[in-house]
């Protein structure tokens, strides 16, 4: 970045934002309360802009100087998603994920690489009891929604429109060719959360606990079948009618970190999930390339357990399934 043309650069950007009929000098003279002559001198770079003037222009034209200047070669800007109970609700959050998937799905070439430390988020939407528990946990413990204070778990708290959106997301996700990189720790947090709620007395009955564990078990068994056929599908659908679009890798070397790389017609977008649910996205080419390279290295060292390697696949899923406590009712 040549640093002596920041002013030029700024005016260039403003010019692009103005309708063709507008005169740049008039607009600038208006905004900065200077004569047209003075405005020209600034545009030509003869009079340097002072900081306050630059600030006025940036605000007026919604320009991020950081982005324009790609401040420092080693900086990356991210667009964040931050859930809160007032302005950005869980419902909106799910809707935005759905919109993103619709967007991804609209491309000719599309591909997802999902490096994960938990069971990928979208699979929790498959069976109602598991979704209901996750929803309850997120609302109560993570978002600390006031309506959930003092509440015990009930399947009924999952609103049907949320459940529907979740399933639409899963359906679209299933449509997009995906490589997932898992490790055997991926069920630990959900099992830990169920155990935690059980010990804390947040369940009405042991039956509820059993139902949730059962849904988790069924989800994993379904995911195992997906891996076996090498395609993603919903329970009840015929895997043979689906395209071969799913690779699953068993990663033994590091714990993953919930990173999603999306490729659409050659363009990469990277989503980093940074605190349970919130994520941020970037399309910075260099950064995406760097993460992509690292993901490829993990894939190279991973064991492929989709389509082939029946034995390895069974070993892997058995490890996961064995972690689910069997029959808590009598304990």
């Amino acid at each position, binding site marked *: 970045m040549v*640093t*002596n043309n*920041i*002013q030029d650069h*700024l005016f260039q950007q403003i010019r692009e934002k103005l309708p063709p009929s507008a005169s740049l000098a008039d607009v600038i003279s208006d905004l900065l309360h200077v004569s047209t002559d003075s405005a020209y001198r600034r545009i030509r770079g003869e009079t*340097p802009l*002072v*900081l*306050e003037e*630059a*600030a006025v222009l*940036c*605000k007026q034209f*919604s320009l*991020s*100087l*950081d*982005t324009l*200047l790609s*401040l*420092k070669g*080693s*900086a*990356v*800007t*991210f*667009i*964040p998603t*931050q859930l809160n109970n007032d302005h950005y609700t869980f419902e909106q959050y799910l809707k935005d994920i759905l919109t993103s998937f619709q967007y991804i799905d609209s491309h000719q070439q599309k591909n997802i690489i999902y490096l994960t*430390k*938990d069971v990928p988020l979208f699979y929790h939407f498959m069976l109602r009891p598991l979704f209901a528990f996750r929803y309850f946990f997120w609302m109560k*413990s*993570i978002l600390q929604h006031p309506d959930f204070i003092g509440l015990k778990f009930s399947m009924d708290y999952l609103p049907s429109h949320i459940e529907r959106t979740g399933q639409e997301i899963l359906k679209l996700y299933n449509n997009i060719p995906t490589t997932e990189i898992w490790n055997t*720790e991926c069920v*630990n947090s959900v099992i*830990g*959360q169920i155990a*935690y709620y059980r010990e804390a007395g947040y369940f009405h009955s042991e039956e509820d606990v059993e139902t949730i564990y059962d849904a988790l078990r069924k989800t994993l068994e379904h995911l195992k079948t997906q891996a076996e056929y090498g395609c993603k599908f919903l329970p009840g659908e015929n895997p043979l009618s689906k395209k071969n679009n799913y690779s699953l890798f068993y990663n*033994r*070397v*590091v*714990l993953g*970190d*919930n990173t999603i790389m999306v490729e659409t017609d050659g363009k990469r977008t990277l989503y*980093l999930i*940074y*605190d*349970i649910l*919130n994520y*941020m996205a970037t399309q910075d080419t*260099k*950064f995406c*390339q*760097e*993460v992509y390279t*690292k*993901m490829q*290295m*993990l894939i190279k*060292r991973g064991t492929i357990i989709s389509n082939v390697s029946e034995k390895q696949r069974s070993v892997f899923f058995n490890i996961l399934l064995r972690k689910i406590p069997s029959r808590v009712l009598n304990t």
Partner: protein
Amino acid sequence: MESSELQQQIFQQIKSKLPQHLSMVDDVANILGVSTDSAYRRIRGEKALSLEEVYKLCVHFQFSFDQLFNFQSGTYMFQGEFVQDFDFNFLKHISNIEQQMKYMNSFTQKHMYYVCKDMPIFHHFHFREIAAFKYFFWMKLFIQSPEFAHKKFRFADYSDELFQTGRRILKNYNQLESTEIWNIEGINSTIRQIEFYRDLDMLADEEEVYQVYDALERLVNHLEVQADAGYKSFADDPDHKPMGSFQMYFNEVTLGDNCILSVLDGNKVVFINHSVINFMLTRDTHFCDRTYEHIQNLMRKSTLISSVSERERTRFFKHLKQRIAARKQSLKE
């Protein structure tokens, strides 16, 4: 030229980033390539900064134009070492960490919150065997050269220079106050990595593998000593001379993500782990505050196992030690 409010803000921000004993004026003069006198005139607001000068300061002190203008662009800016050379350079990597640690340590009030997925790297440097193995592992994972691909693990390949850098990192880390939120999975990746390369027959000497496990066991013991005492110390210091305070939480509900938040004289900075080994940082106030809240929430859901809760602490460490003992046992068979 009249003093501008934004200009004052810039210098206030720079001041808050500099440790107290450093003089801002020298730094500013240096970066802008002007005399100390001219730098003073800018700091006092007698001379206006040009946009180019602001840019230079932003780049050097890593703050954001947008934040300065209080402009809600709806984005966060992160800095870090993003693009590696073709060959992953481990010394460069840990030298960067050393720089960051020294920087943090230069503040009066310095507290590091760490939501661990893996054992924080600082602890590795208590024992050379662990540090050597981790070095081998990362090199193996990221170095593409065929020469390294067939190389087997030996302690002897880990240089003194690397280890000394590591020790300096540990020394700086030990002086900070720390709050660490651990999972039971905290040592899994290390064990997994040892087993992975054993399976590939990349560990030349079984005796050395045993020594790595042995060192891991001693490291876990030392973590327990520090958790019990509530402060950090060197494992090889027989007196365990107290250093920075050490709070340890046991988190059973989520897997951590190796996220670090440091509070330095009241200012927050967040480091986020990405692409397995790299970190990037942001000082975005909004982001840092949200992360801080998130960590506080996580602490409320976790069990404090340092200083208090002996029963839970013992249980936590017993679990870690059992894992290591099982591996050691399997080596003997």
